[in-house]
């Protein structure tokens, strides 16, 4: 798929760049720190490879930005040409928050009346009622999984999940290849040492 190979390329470039930036800042890191940095770089690279087209990427970036020390990294990764994109990101996040708040208010006001309505019918079609609860619970879980999912309705949540799955796949593939490559490299290095 040419979309995923393009994404692969973009992601790899940005990830490598991010790693370079990361390691230039600190000299010694223990394993856990390194792991966190690697993962962070990978996430941000993935999100920025999307160029702020999807809302989960926007959410990822904004979350990463909340941490001050990551901000430089994020800025560098995003690139100077995407300053306006950052504005867009900020605006979108604000609108998302507003949407979330207003949705919560709406839900609260409607929930009571809905509960009154619901009391009657569900007794007769219990199966449907249970099914609805199941679906609702699962959408909640999915909302928590997909970054930025809380402020989305069901339909766009599924769309975002789709996109997120694709990107995650790309990420996993690239990381796996790199890990394998370095593993083999280390093996060959050690074998060379012994020769």
């Amino acid at each position: 798929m040419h979309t995923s190979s393009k994404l692969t390329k973009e992601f790899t470039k940005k990830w490598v760049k991010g790693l370079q930036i990361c390691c230039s800042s600190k000299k010694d890191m223990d394993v856990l720190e390194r792991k966190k940095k690697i993962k962070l770089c990978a996430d941000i690279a993935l999100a920025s490879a999307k160029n702020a087209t999807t809302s989960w990427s926007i959410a990822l970036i904004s979350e990463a930005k909340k941490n001050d020390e990551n901000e430089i990294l994020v800025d560098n990764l995003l690139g100077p040409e995407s300053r306006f994109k950052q504005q867009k990101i900020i605006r979108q996040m604000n609108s998302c928050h507003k949407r979330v708040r207003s949705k919560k208010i709406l839900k609260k006001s409607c929930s009571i009346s809905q509960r009154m309505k619901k009391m009657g019918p569900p007794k007769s079609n219990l199966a449907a009622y249970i099914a609805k609860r199941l679906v609702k619970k699962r959408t909640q879980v999915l909302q928590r999984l997909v970054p930025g999912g809380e402020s989305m309705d069901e339909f766009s949540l599924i769309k975002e999940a789709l996109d997120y799955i694709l990107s995650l796949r790309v990420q996993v593939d690239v990381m796996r290849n790199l890990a394998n490559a370095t593993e083999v490299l280390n093996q060959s290095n050690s074998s060379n040492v012994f020769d």
Partner: protein
Amino acid sequence: MQHCPYTTMNIPGNTVVTSGTDVSVFERQQARMKWQQQQQEGLFNGNDHQFRGLVEVKPDPGLQYGWPDFSDGCQGQAIPSLMEDHNLKKRKAHEDQKQKVVLKENSVKEKKIKGCSEENSAETSSKEKPKAVEGPKQEYIHVRARRGQATDSHSLAERVRREKISERMKYLQDLVPGCNKITGKAGMLDEIINYVQSLQKQVEFLSMKLATLQPRLDFDIDSLIMKEMFEVPAVAYSAEVANSAYFQVNSLLEMGNNPIDAMLRRSIGGPVSIPETFVVSSCFNQMQPGVTWDGDLHNLYRMEIQQESSTIPFQPHKFTGLYEGSNLKMEL
């Protein structure tokens, strides 16, 4: 009545109704049916239902643009099943027997499940027991006929929404492995959740692995590039070669000619397992369907490979620059 503007249309056909309000409603339904029939004749005969459902629904929001204003007024009224069956007809516009179906309350199977049925039940006081059937994909949707649905525009909008959701679910089914047998919305969501969780855990695990493999973060690329620069036949998979290897292996699978291919073959020494992982992962990638996103997969892909193979040689220049820069740091 507020519905008056619609009844001025020329509406031939039966008007089998009981009350005054029903007449106008039914006439409107008739008109819509005719209009839709004209729209769809020759387009969807024998086509996949899904498309029918999609395109059927789309023109409607434009038509019923004014409806929300009207429908507010009739929330309190007990609108009979005719209103509901109006939604029915959107699916089976080409069938004429619907008119008989209209007046009866038939229990029917829904296409995508439970998630649909309870939404209706929440709004209506339905007489029959709803069958929450996990419908296997059928040629056309049978929709439950219900009494006393609150507003037509709401239900129509809901139907639109549900159609969209089921369409997305189809994509997801193709994307998530092992989902072909599951047709329920809840089950699908379950699978999706599991898959996303497993992918995220894989990312965590791989980043941990990378962290343990490297003494320092920058080691990832430098040594790999060095190897690649000097073309040591033993290994030499750098990140960018990882990229090119991707394309190469994919092109190998597609029997394409690639100049980097030769270099790859030269550089493959001992490790035979790596190409396998590449192949596996690229197979994995290839098996992604890309239903509407990529038109002609193979042609596009081949073209893309040709293009990108020409741009790959430019990358080494970039990386050598970086390598030299960081090399200085290492020496310091």
